[in-house]
Structures are given as structure tokens and as C-alpha cells.
């Protein structure tokens, strides 16, 4: 069973339905026992970094996430859920993140419109299992004003161009994260959810 962590940061039904669409099951939950017994976690989220961290704390979800990392369970961070995995974010001053990926979340300092909103393509740098059904240059739906920059460039699995080249897919051991929304990226996104469900 896949547990989609519910910490009040956006609608999680589409992720759950997306997983079902590709033939697997997922629960939306903040129940520690359910999270403990799940064999995979999805850390979703839209909205502000600070609110995201505050809600993870409020619902006592931080320890279960660390436990899952320690146990080597596959984890998929999506959008804000990806950013929360980093050490810190520049959003509203400097805010501490989960610190699972060493690095910082930065605001786009570019001469283009922000948020980066819409469909953009990925340049796959590493053939990771999460991308095994995806093709070079495939388009995904993005909506964000910040992006995560890991200290170790080796964990960047794909990048995307928007004024600068930023990491759009991260992988570090059993941990995966996408800056785009697979659950809003039609068949391209469903292929990612399927790959994660079948890891």
C-alpha cells in the first residue's frame, strides 16, 4: 500500500486517483500507524514552504518520514513535497526543511514571468527507475516560484529550462522527487506514478 501524506497542503484526490488509474492502491492519510505499515510514501503539496513545514509538525508527520527514509522505503516528493525534503528554503526569510536532501530551495531570479506555470520538458540526466517509462524531452505540468538546488549534483536525475536550468527530478537512494505534478500531467504523469508504484 502507498500512503499519500495528508497535511492540508492541497487536494490529494488526483494523486490517489492517478495511482488507481495505473492499477494500484493508495490511501490519503495522516495516521501514523497507516504510514508505518505502508511500503511507500508520497509527500505531495502545493502552497508555501513555511506552512508546509508547520503542518508536518502539527500533524506529527516528521518522525514517520524520517523513519521511512531510514527503513529505505521508496518516497516520492511532489512539487512543495519535493522542496520540503531540502535542508532549507529562501521562502519568507530562511526556513528549515526536512534536511533529507542537502541543499537549498531558491526563488527564480530570472527575467521571465514567475510563477513558472505550464507544460515544460525534462532533460533526463540519469536513467533512474522512476523515469523508466518516460522519454527524453517529455512534457510535464509545472507551477512553482521556487526550485530546489541540491549540494550534490549527482542526485539530479533530470533538469528543465526556464531562464535557468533547474533540477526537475531528484533521486537519492530510494528517495525520488519531481518539481512538476505527475497527477496533472496526463499520460506522461501517470507513467511516473506507475513507475513509482511498481518500484
Amino acid at each position: 500500500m502507498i500512503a499519500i501524506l495528508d497535511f492540508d497542503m492541497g487536494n490529494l484526490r488526483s494523486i490517489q486517483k492517478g495511482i488507481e488509474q495505473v492499477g494500484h492502491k493508495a490511501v490519503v492519510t495522516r495516521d501514523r500507524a497507516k504510514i508505518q505499515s505502508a511500503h511507500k510514501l508520497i509527500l505531495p503539496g502545493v502552497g508555501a514552504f513555511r506552512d508546509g513545514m508547520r503542518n508536518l509538525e502539527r500533524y506529527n508527520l516528521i518522525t514517520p518520514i524520517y523513519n521511512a527514509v531510514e527503513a529505505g522505503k521508496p518516497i516520492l516528493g511532489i512539487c512543495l513535497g519535493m522542496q520540503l525534503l531540502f535542508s532549507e528554503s529562501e521562502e519568507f526569510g530562511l526556513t528549515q526543511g526536512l534536511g533529507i536532501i542537502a541543499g537549498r530551495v531558491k526563488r527564480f531570479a530570472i527575467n521571465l514571468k514567475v510563477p513558472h506555470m505550464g507544460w515544460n520538458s525534462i532533460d533526463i540526466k540519469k536513467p533512474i527507475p522512476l523515469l523508466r517509462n518516460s522519454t527524453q524531452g517529455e512534457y510535464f505540468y509545472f507551477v512553482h516560484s521556487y526550485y530546489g538546488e541540491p549540494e550534490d549534483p549527482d542526485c539530479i536525475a533530470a533538469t528543465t529550462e526556464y531562464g535557468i536550468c533547474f533540477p526537475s527530478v531528484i533521486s537519492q537512494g530510494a528517495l525520488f522527487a519531481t518539481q512538476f505534478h505527475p497527477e496533472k500531467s496526463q499520460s506522461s504523469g501517470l507513467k511516473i506514478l506507475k513507475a513509482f508504484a511498481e518500484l
Partner: protein
Amino acid sequence: MLAKRIIPCLDIKDGRVVKGVSFVNLRDAGDPVEVAKTYEAEEADEIVFLDITASHEKREIIIDVARRTSEMVFMPLTIGGGIRSLKDIERLLKAGADKISLNTSAVDNPQLVRQAAEYFGSQCIVVAIDAKRSGPCSWEVYTHGGRVARGLDAVDWAKEVESLGAGEILLTSMDQDGQQTGYDLELTRSVSEGVNIPVIASGGAGTLEHLYQALVKGRADAVLAASIFHYRTYTIHQAKAYLKERGIPVRM
């Protein structure tokens, strides 16, 4: 490279699609979910539902439509029409809408835009601006479905909603809407260059050349159209192929 978006828009009344949609293969062309699924299969980049339900009691229906759509369709869904409060926004987002479009309520109460952006994030707050030409280079904002002039300059209002935290602007030319003679390119360009958030051009699409002009001359980030897609004058695919051939980055 970020693709320019092609966005079909459905008018929805009491949970049903209005403006005859000419889809031959649908069991129920009045069902917004079925129509949205068809557009998804054609690779529309997003979809917009404009709720024109008049009676307040029947407004629950759109929440159910949002829920059913988000369970079946895996692309961004924007819902607009009659949304007045943070509570309305919260319920639609929870039901599965990705973005909420505010129009009259934003002009009546600009603080709603600020509060909504703070609570839910700028990325899900769209401000819809209905503008009508009032001079050679000026456009006035109208609300209440285009019935009430508000004495606001459209470009100034666009800048203000950006500073209030809106994440996107859905800009409709009332002069061009329904004419099928092309978007108001000057309006689109003035607003698009006046703000640093994405602008969706709306009102006037009749040919694929019109879409191209709105993106190039109008500098829009996305184009919205209803009739040309609903009546199957063009499919989304045809529109994208046309734009791609002319060097516009689109997702195909």
C-alpha cells in the same frame, strides 16, 4: 522550453455544459466530465469551467462537478463564476479544482485576492478581467458577467491584482468575445507586458491564425477558446500542429 498553453473553456449551468458542444462520440455531450475527458485525450493543456448557474442554491452542483472531474481527468482544472468567499474557494479546491478564478468578487473586495493568495498560494488564484475598449489605448473593467462598468483601467487593475498576489490573469476582451474575428491584441499585449505573471488571452478566437497572433503580437502565455473547439471547427491537435509549424513552442 515552456510551452504556450491551449485552453478550452466550458460554460456550465446547473452542472451541464451550455453552448452546444458538437462532439459526436460522446454518450452525453452535456456532461462536463465527459467533455473534459475528450479534451484531455486531445492533449488540451488545461481546462476552464465557467459556472454560470444563476441561483445560489444550485451552486453546490459545481462542487460535485469539480470532484468528479478531478477523479477522471489528470490535467489542471480552473473553476470560475460566482465565487465570493474564502470558504467558496476552499470548498472548490478541496473538491479537486487546481485554480480558482475570481472576477466580480475581486473588484468588490480586492482583499479577497490577497487573503486567498496568502491562504491557498498564488499559484491557484487567477483573476479574470473582462475589459471593454474605452479609448484608443485604454480599456475599462466590467463585472457581473459584463453588465456593470467599474471605472477601473484594465492594465492598472491587472497590475494591482498582481501586487495583491494573483498568480495568473485570464483576460477577456468584451468587444471581441463571440465575434470570432480575433483577440484584442493591443489589450492583450498591454496587460501581458504590464505584469510579471502569466496572462491567458480570451475572447474572439475564430481561426488558428488568431491563436497565433494572440501569442506573438499579444504576447500572451496561453490562449483560451470555446466555440472553435466545441463546434469542432478545429481540434486541439490541429491548433497545436498549426502553431508548432509557425515556430511556437507547444506540447505535442
